[in-house]
């Protein structure tokens, strides 16, 4: 595993995103949906904060990031180009890491334009920057976790649509279990709450950066990428 080969794979993947119209469609949809839902209630409530934006973000990420990541492996399996990639002098870990980083960076670029919202809001009222900074830090971890899930789902199938459905389902599940705890038996709630990405995200988004939440995200990313590695190994 070398940083050089990871960088080359990552660069190629990242460029490929932007050579197809798909990337621009995803970015546009993401910005329209987040912008619309956030500002639809923003002026009604009349509070200068971004709480609603960060409440909305996990569920939108749960669908947009799988759409970004779905092609990473699936397309290569389908066209057979994976055979060329894998027989170049790189390890499987290089390939997975390169693809993962490309997907993560794309998600962050998708998120970047929303940084104008807090700047805009701060002109309207007295914005508390703590939760905003926390929210964006949480968003980076969230994008990291969902990208890893997207890469994993993509490595399980050669059909992009199936990959999307698998990863969107996992991301959706991890997002909504926090809200559906009332329906579940009480002895499970602690565990399921800990499992939920949106729970940890909301902790960070409050502006409290706790090591437990960071460890949760890092563990999730590591385990998912490791599963991807095992699936790739199994394939050969």
């Amino acid at each position: 595993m070398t940083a050089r080969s990871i960088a080359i794979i990552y660069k190629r993947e990242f460029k490929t995103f932007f050579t197809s119209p798909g990337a621009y469609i995803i970015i546009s949809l993401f910005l329209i949906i987040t912008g619309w839902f956030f500002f639809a209630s923003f002026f009604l409530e009349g509070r200068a904060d971004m709480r609603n934006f960060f409440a909305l973000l996990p569920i939108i990420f749960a669908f947009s990031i799988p759409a970004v990541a779905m092609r990473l492996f699936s397309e290569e399996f389908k066209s057979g180009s994976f055979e060329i990639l894998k027989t170049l002098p790189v390890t499987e870990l290089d390939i997975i890491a390169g693809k993962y980083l490309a997907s993560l960076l794309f998600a962050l670029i998708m998120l970047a334009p929303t940084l104008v919202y807090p700047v805009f809001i701060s002109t309207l009222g007295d914005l508390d920057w703590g939760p905003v900074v926390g929210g964006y830090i949480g968003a980076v971890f969230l994008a990291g976790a969902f990208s890893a899930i997207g890469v994993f789902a993509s490595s399980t199938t050669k059909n992009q649509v199936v990959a999307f459905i698998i990863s969107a389902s996992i991301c959706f599940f991890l997002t909504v279990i926090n809200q559906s705890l009332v329906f579940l038996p009480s002895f499970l709630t602690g565990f399921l709450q800990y499992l939920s990405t949106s729970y940890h995200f909301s902790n960070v988004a409050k502006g409290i950066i706790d090591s437990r939440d960071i460890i949760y995200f890092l563990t999730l990313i590591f385990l998912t990428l490791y599963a991807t590695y095992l699936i790739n190994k199994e394939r050969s």
Partner: protein
Amino acid sequence: MVQIKELTRYYGQTCAVDNLNFEIPKGQILGLLGPNGAGKTTTLRILTGYLQPTSGTIYVDGIDVKEDPLAVKKMIGYLPESSPIYPDMIVFDYLLFIAEMRGIEKDRQINRIKELAEICSLKEVMHKTVMNLSKGYKQRVGLALALMSDPDILVLDEPTSGLDPNQIVEIRSIIKEIGKTKTIIFSTHILSEAEATCDRVVIINNGAIAADGSTEVLKTSEGGTSLVSLTLQNADKDDIAAVLKGFTGIKETSYNKSGDTLEVKLSCAEDIRAALYSEIKKKDWILLEFKQERKSLEHIFRELTKDN
């Protein structure tokens, strides 16, 4: 250079390669022949590190592919079947990507791509997207990628499949040119191709070796039958059949009558030409043609692999 040792690979219950053993010395052009599904592609995929063997292994220059796949990959240039190149990339970008992946230094990359464009005649398509290329060009781009790092071993999986006759000749001449200095292993099921380009042919069937040798050796030794064809005038099929009855060891006879000439083809276990000629001399047939045919590689191939 390459040693294949007791190589076995299963896909679930199906055995694709069954205890395969052979060696390829340095500088040889080896043709791997066999019907579809014989295990050619699987063998090449294990050699190039795409697949893992179920048991056994391959040594490349003494290095075990299972233990140090990275070192082996560095020595091998590989063109997979039907040249699956990223369809949405421009040829130049693609070659640059491969050059980077192969660890060619930055200041040499452009020069190397220029050299390859020359060898594989890619100049006109450098700026085109891969998906808009014809099959022949795609194959040549694939060949350029395999050659990128100037590897000692070149592995080509059916490099000419789906090409038109002109393109086939071009690819073959490139292979022959490169083969002067490199070890080349390529698979094909086109026999004339193996005949035209290879130093040595290994025929595999059902995952095991069915024959191994130079095309010349294979043609004369395998099967132990000789083919005789003769063309006669004023002869009747029944008369000849009666004459031939006197010979032992004739396996197959075929007749082909056109006008007043009759073409007879025999395959027999031993050389019966002398005896046959003296028989013909006794009749008042006119012998127009009489020759021993060498067995074609097609014939050998069919004989060795006819069980499937």
